[in-house]
């Protein structure tokens, strides 16, 4: 087994839990700590990727391009990455992010829709970026199906393809089976991105590493959508104990989580009742805070909203359906 490379996405997936309220000072401090601890790639973007600042997903407090630029200026060894979801962000935002200094782009599609990313991979390679494909909501399809989608991304120019457990719905053997299937079929690297809705973020990440994952994702304190992600400092400690430390400073990451991130976190994501419901029903982790807010406003149990979204097979980005489901339920409840 070889040591996997860690990508930290505190400043991207963590943006969901922060309700996109990161400031330049937050970015500077977080990047400085992660960079010093030796994390090689840091993802910095609105939670829903470039161009995600919107009514649908929540407006950013600070323009993500300025946050990217601050991150680039702060980092000494780490490469700064951005996330792009075709259909939300476009090549215009990608060009701007490149101008601000990103070196890596992670291009995400729903796990059945990889062919919408061809244009963006092509452009990213032309601009000399390192490219990562993100197959979101990978729990919804079996390994052999994901292989076909991953091969499409490989053919478009992906240097690595991730199995992304956006709903935190996978069990360890499911994470391992998917990673292994991609490892066997692709000639490029394979990665794994976890969410902790069923309390399995670290367990699934280890299963992915044992199945051959080349890259894994973490966030400090697990700060991210739903019950959050695999905590970067925990991944580091565990990999170190397995003699698989990829060259990061374990104590430095523990300090970064405790003294840099924790004081600015609005709350500690945990697998609470509604987050478990997300993992259990297999819906997009990002729906959590939207469902909590709308549930409170319209007097509907957020868990009922989330389970109904699972039944309707909602995918990443469909935050407007949370409002739709809530209004449908409120109408039914009021007998109108």
């Amino acid at each position, binding site marked *: 087994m070889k040591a996997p490379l860690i990508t930290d996405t505190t400043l991207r997936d963590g943006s969901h839990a922060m309700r996109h309220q990161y400031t330049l000072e937050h970015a500077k401090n977080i990047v400085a700590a992660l960079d010093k601890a030796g994390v090689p790639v840091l993802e910095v973007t609105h939670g829903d990727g470039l161009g995600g600042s*919107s*009514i*649908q997903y929540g*407006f*950013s*407090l*600070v323009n993500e391009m300025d946050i990217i630029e601050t991150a680039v200026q702060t980092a000494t060894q780490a490469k700064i990455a951005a996330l792009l979801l*075709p*259909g*939300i962000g*476009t*090549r*215009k935002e990608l060009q701007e992010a490149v101008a601000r200094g990103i070196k890596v782009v992670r291009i995400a599609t*729903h796990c*059945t*829709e990889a*062919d*919408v990313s*061809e*244009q*963006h991979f092509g452009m990213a390679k032309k601009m000399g970026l390192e490219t990562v494909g993100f197959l979101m909501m990978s729990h919804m399809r079996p390994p052999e199906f994901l292989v076909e989608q991953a091969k499409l991304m490989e053919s478009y120019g992906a240097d690595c393809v991730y199995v992304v457990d956006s709903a935190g719905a996978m069990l360890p053997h499911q994470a391992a089976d998917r990673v292994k299937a991609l490892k066997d079929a692709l000639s490029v690297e394979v990665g794994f991105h976890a969410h902790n809705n069923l309390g399995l973020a670290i367990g699934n990440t280890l299963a992915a590493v044992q199945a051959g994952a080349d890259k894994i994702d973490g966030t400090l304190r697990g700060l991210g959508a739903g019950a959050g992600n695999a905590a970067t400092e925990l991944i580091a400690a565990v990999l170190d104990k397995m003699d698989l430390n990829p060259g990061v400073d374990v104590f430095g990451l523990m300090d970064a989580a405790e003294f840099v991130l924790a004081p600015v976190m609005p709350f500690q994501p945990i697998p609470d009742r509604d987050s478990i419901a997300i993992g259990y029903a297999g819906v997009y982790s990002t729906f959590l805070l939207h469902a909590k807010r709308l549930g409170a*406003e319209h007097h509907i149990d957020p868990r009922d909203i989330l389970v109904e979204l699972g039944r*309707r*097979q*909602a*995918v*990443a*980005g*469909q935050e*407007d*359906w949370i*409002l*739709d489901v809530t*209004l*449908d339920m409120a109408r039914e409840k009021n007998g109108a």
Partner: protein
Amino acid sequence: MTTNGQTGTDTVKVAILGSGNIGSDLMFKLMKQPGHMELAMLAGIDPESDGLTRARDLGIGASAEGIKAVLADPDLKIVFDATSAYAHVRHAKALREAGRIAIDLTPAARGPYVVPPANLNAHLDEVNVNLITCGGQATIPLAYAVSRVTPVDYAEMVSTVSSVSAGPGTRQNIDEFTFTTARGLEVIGGAKKGKAIIILNPADPPIMMRNTVYVMPAANDIDEQAITDSVNRMVADVQEYVPGYRLKNGPLFEQRSTAQGPRTIVSMLLEVTGAGDWLPPYAGNLDIMTASARRVGEVFAQKLLAEATTTEVTA
């Protein structure tokens, strides 16, 4: 102009370029509800295409000669282009030179954008009009319905379509969908700034086309009743030519936090069920394009007929 001897109603001969799904669906719509149009030709470029066979079976002139066949018949006054943006650039020039009216269903945008209930009447002197995008046809009317009541700073639309109804053209040019639709929200929808998001959903059975429109008026204190009335009137206007167009929820008025402080947001959630003329009902995204095209063609046909009558009288 031709006079239909059997019914005695005046009609204008029209043609469809493109024998794929969109061209076929439009063909069935024009057969079902011809109005003042007589569909005289479906022209494709693939002699083996199912669309051309279907046209022949329906007794409609079918040609695999594409634009050449259309240009060869001077009676074909209105031409619907359901090919591709790339092909339409060439078609637009040829049709303009031949004095034909082009109704463009591709994203080529050689002529002004039109959304029938918002601005079609302003562009009846044009020889080429563009139908923007499916999501644009669905959502721009509602942004317009708000902006005709109160000034709008920002309008955002989210279109969710079933994966099976998104063809390779949409998939390989997904950025063009967002650019074009956002521009339409500004130019016709009346927003200072527009934003568009498109999501493909692979659920089985396929979902109906869903669209959400969020509008941020310039003022926080707005006349909610006037906006609601305007939106309901607009929905009724669109339903006249897209029967499956339905406002499922809203308009909902709420305060949301933004970087500029709390702002009033108007949310409107739409569902579009296709008429099932050729494509299945879940493909409401394609249905609204062909239904809008038919509407635009009908208005142009009536205008041509009115002009012909005037010419006869003055001659």
